[in-house]
């Protein structure tokens, strides 16, 4: 990969930016996410989280199995305010 390859497409974060914060000493996905916003855009990290984990593993020597993945949060897919506000639960 070239260093200017975009890793997080939603927030347009490049490999170079990710490597820079790892080299500054940020060695967890949670910190990288909060510093760069990668994984906080439209796809919620579906495209980039594992790629960033791999870069982190390569740069720090942590095995992939030891890298803590960031919390997945609802909704599974983006849902419009209109659809959500018209939702009625079956209990009502």
């Amino acid at each position, binding site marked *: 990969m070239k260093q200017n390859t975009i890793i997080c497409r939603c927030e347009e974060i490049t490999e170079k930016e990710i490597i820079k914060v790892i080299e500054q000493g940020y060695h967890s996905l949670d910190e990288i996410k*909060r510093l760069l916003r990668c994984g906080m855009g439209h796809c919620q990290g579906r495209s980039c989280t594992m790629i960033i984990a791999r870069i982190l593993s390569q740069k720090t020597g942590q095995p992939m199995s030891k890298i803590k993945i960031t919390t997945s*949060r*609802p*909704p599974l897919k983006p849902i419009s305010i*209109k659809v959500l506000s018209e939702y009625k639960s079956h209990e009502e």
Partner: protein
Amino acid sequence: MKNNTADVIVIGAGIIGAATGYYLAKKKLKVYVLEKEFPCFGSTGRCIGGIRQQYTHPLSINVMKESVKIFSSLNKEFGKDIEWFPGGYLFLAHSEEQKNTYLSTIQIQHKFNLPVRFISADECNNIVNGINTEGLLGGAYCPTDGQANPFAVTYGYLQRIKELNGKVFTNSNVSKIKTSGNKAKSVITNCGEYFAPVVINATGSWAKHVSKMVGLDVPIEPERHESLVTEACERLFDPMLVDYRSDGCYFIQNYGTGHFIGCYTPVPNNPGYDRRASSEFITEMPRRMSRLVPRLKELKVIRQWAGSYEMTPDGNPIVDKTPVEGFYISAGMCGHGFMFGPALGKYMSELVTTGKTSLPLDDFALNRSFGKAEAMK
């Protein structure tokens, strides 16, 4: 000095610990910040980044005037963008009673030279194009309130601490605080023991638990609040909208990214450490948002989460020394920690180094009566 010994240990790497640590490091003290997870794990990383001076308590207004001054200077101080944007706060009135409350709070705020004014529903529509004016009587608007990025501010402070000879220890969970002759002596974590004559409890929701380690009982209890964020879009309007009705909400368009981000205060409240997101919130919040600004209804919600407000009995923080010499507390921010953080960090650094603060913090004292509640919570 040994590498396990500092001048000051700050427990907690949220905005309070980061800002307090920075202003102490700037006074040439060696600062260690101990964080049980990662910076912004607690309330700071879960807040929506609003910054306002519209309070009723004189001390809160003064603290926030100082904080706004600091926020507007942090880009220069950090050499990077913290996304400070003075887009204002607009508190909406949908009843005569609410309008009259704002008219009287504005009287108080004018004594502190805040440029707050009550604007008509038409003016609200000029500032927030497409706001639902049905039943809207106007709002209290302060154009010098605003927002910033909580991650950028907190990580910015921590980076500066490191540059000033301090250290930030992540994944370091404090299990014990040792004292000697009623003086703070050391802090024990899963990663080892650290020594300092000053220990500051900046642990937010966990402040009660950490204070108990030195035998103190502080009245701070977490309550669950929830938030959501939408996809980004072009800039629609600048201020934070606050609807204080019991079924109201508050939200703002993030200046840095264009996402809309918001919350509501649940009635009744949800005490405890539960930080799970609920299906009730993700359906109810969109109803409340689109009721206020119907044109938002095509925007998609991309994420929801929950966090804690760390409540005290009167809705104001506890920022004080304690009966244990060298042990200080700055916690119980009641949902205002991010915006109070920079100024309270500065004042706490004064308290630690000189024994007093340039702004008297008596109303945030540990031993106060907790009788005078904040009206604009």
